[in-house]
């Protein structure tokens, strides 16, 4: 053995190194566990350098633009951009509310309800793998970030937190091929699953049957089914929709990356919002006034649809079944007593006694 190891020392070390990593890999695949120590070391070694360089880069960039190019305009631009983002979020929320209720009540709802609680973060580095769309952000468990939290921008969804370290977190972007989220269409309320395509700006909606109706230009919003993204966040607009073998093939353009991706919001406490209706057209539509509330407040009493005399065969059969049901104390649609004997002769109704 000793002779073998000394003679084939290089090969032995190679086999040992490969075996050790295979065991490591098998352990992770089998247990779905993570070897956190190695990751913490690597992230701890690389991300501080990335942050220092990023700070230096943005500092130098700000210095030149602030003092040599646009003195004073930079601050105003930043303030206006922040204001624009805030207004966009408010606008999105208001649009959602206004399209489902009247203006006054939605304003009241907006004032009463608070939007999702978010934490702003800055992207400091990309992930390592070319095939994977992931980034590192400068917020971690110290800021209350946890794995599985939704990452959004004012324009739509951006990704979800996959791993969290003390001061950093790893985010899987919506463009990654492994990313999925529950979505719902705006016009027809069709549920589906959004999947990333591995390249920028586009995605696919899966699990929508051919029979279901999706229009080109229709918007998809988060449905809240995945328990990650709050309901009602915009995902993207349908660019292509066609019949597939069993399911529709639907491609969308993502809305979350419209203005680049440098700063994002992590949803710490999500608030579900209703899906907005289709955009209103300019054409005026006459609507009836809403019905008055019930005075008694009890359960509504169902009235038979046919109030006049039976005129058709169907009416006569229906009337016959109704009488059977009344005589046998049978309620149609319930299986407790079994169905009555429909062939038995109908008992003549008792005539009211004359006074």
């Amino acid at each position, binding site marked *: 053995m000793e002779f073998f190891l000394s003679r084939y020392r290089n090969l032995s070390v190679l086999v040992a190194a490969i075996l050790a990593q295979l065991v490591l890999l098998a352990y992770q695949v089998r247990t779905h566990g993570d070897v956190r120590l*190695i990751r913490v070391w690597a992230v701890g070694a*690389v991300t501080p*350098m990335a942050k220092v360089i990023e700070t230096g880069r943005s500092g130098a960039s700000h210095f030149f633009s602030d003092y040599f190019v646009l003195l004073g305009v930079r601050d105003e631009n930043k303030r206006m951009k922040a204001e624009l983002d805030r207004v966009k979020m408010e606008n999105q929320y208001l649009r959602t509310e206004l399209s489902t209720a009247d203006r006054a009540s939605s304003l009241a709802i907006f004032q009463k309800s608070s939007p999702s609680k978010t934490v702003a973060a800055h*992207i400091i580095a990309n992930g*390592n793998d070319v095939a994977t769309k992931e980034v590192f952000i400068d917020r971690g468990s110290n800021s209350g970030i946890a794995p599985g939290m939704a990452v959004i921008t004012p324009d739509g969804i951006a990704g979800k937190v996959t791993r969290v370290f003390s001061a950093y977190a790893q985010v899987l972007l919506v463009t990654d091929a492994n990313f999925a989220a529950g979505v719902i269409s705006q016009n027809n309320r069709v549920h589906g699953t959004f999947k990333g395509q591995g390249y920028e700006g586009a995605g696919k909606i899966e699990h929508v049957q051919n029979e279901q109706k999706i229009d080109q230009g229709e918007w998809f919003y988060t449905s809240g089914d995945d328990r990650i993204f709050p309901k009602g966040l915009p995902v993207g607009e349908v660019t292509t929709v066609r019949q597939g073998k069993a399911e529709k093939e639907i491609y969308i353009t993502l809305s979350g990356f419209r203005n680049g991706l440098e700063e994002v919001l992590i949803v710490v406490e999500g608030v579900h919002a209703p899906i907005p209706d289709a955009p209103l057209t300019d054409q005026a539509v006459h609507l009836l006034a809403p019905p008055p509330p019930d005075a008694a407040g009890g359960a509504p009493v169902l009235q038979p649809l046919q109030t006049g005399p039976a005129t058709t065969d169907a009416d006569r059969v229906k009337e016959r079944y109704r009488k059977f049901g009344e005589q046998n104390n049978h309620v149609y649609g319930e299986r407790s007593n079994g169905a009555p004997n429909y062939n038995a002769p109908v008992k003549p109704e008792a005539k009211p006694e004359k006074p």
Partner: protein
Amino acid sequence: MTGFSEDYREPLRKERTSMFNVAVITGISLLAILFRVYVSRFVPYLQYLELPLLVTVYFSLMWRSPIAGLLFGAAIGLAQDSLSHHELGMFGIVKTLVGYFAASVSLRVDVGNPLLRLVLGFFFFFFHQLLYWVLARALLGEALDFEVTQVLVLATLNAIVAVFLYQLLDRLKITG
């Protein structure tokens, strides 16, 4: 391997082995990984530049020690794995093999020749991508695409970068 060939090779290898400062090796490795995760943010096309691989090949060629090469490859690979979302070990295994084979090749050829470096850079990039694809399919069941034309083009570009990078890194060798 016969005793004669071992005796014949050993002095040659020691004579040609290059030495580097530990700080230089650590710094170059970290910069290579940092390049992958940071610079590609601003220039997306640079994400196809596999600097960690090129650095692994370079040090393995220069050290002429298969054990040092495979351990260095494993370390760089595991660090890359740590910064990706998939399981640890994929890049580790691939770069371990690259380090081993690069060092084994260096025992037989003159690795200072730019043309040979170009060929080795091309070969090891292609080998790296192919092996990663095979492992991802076989071990993780991932349905990754392997576009031969794209990989060949990227291998050529990486090989050209490798020639200039290696000349730069040659200046960091400890002389004397």
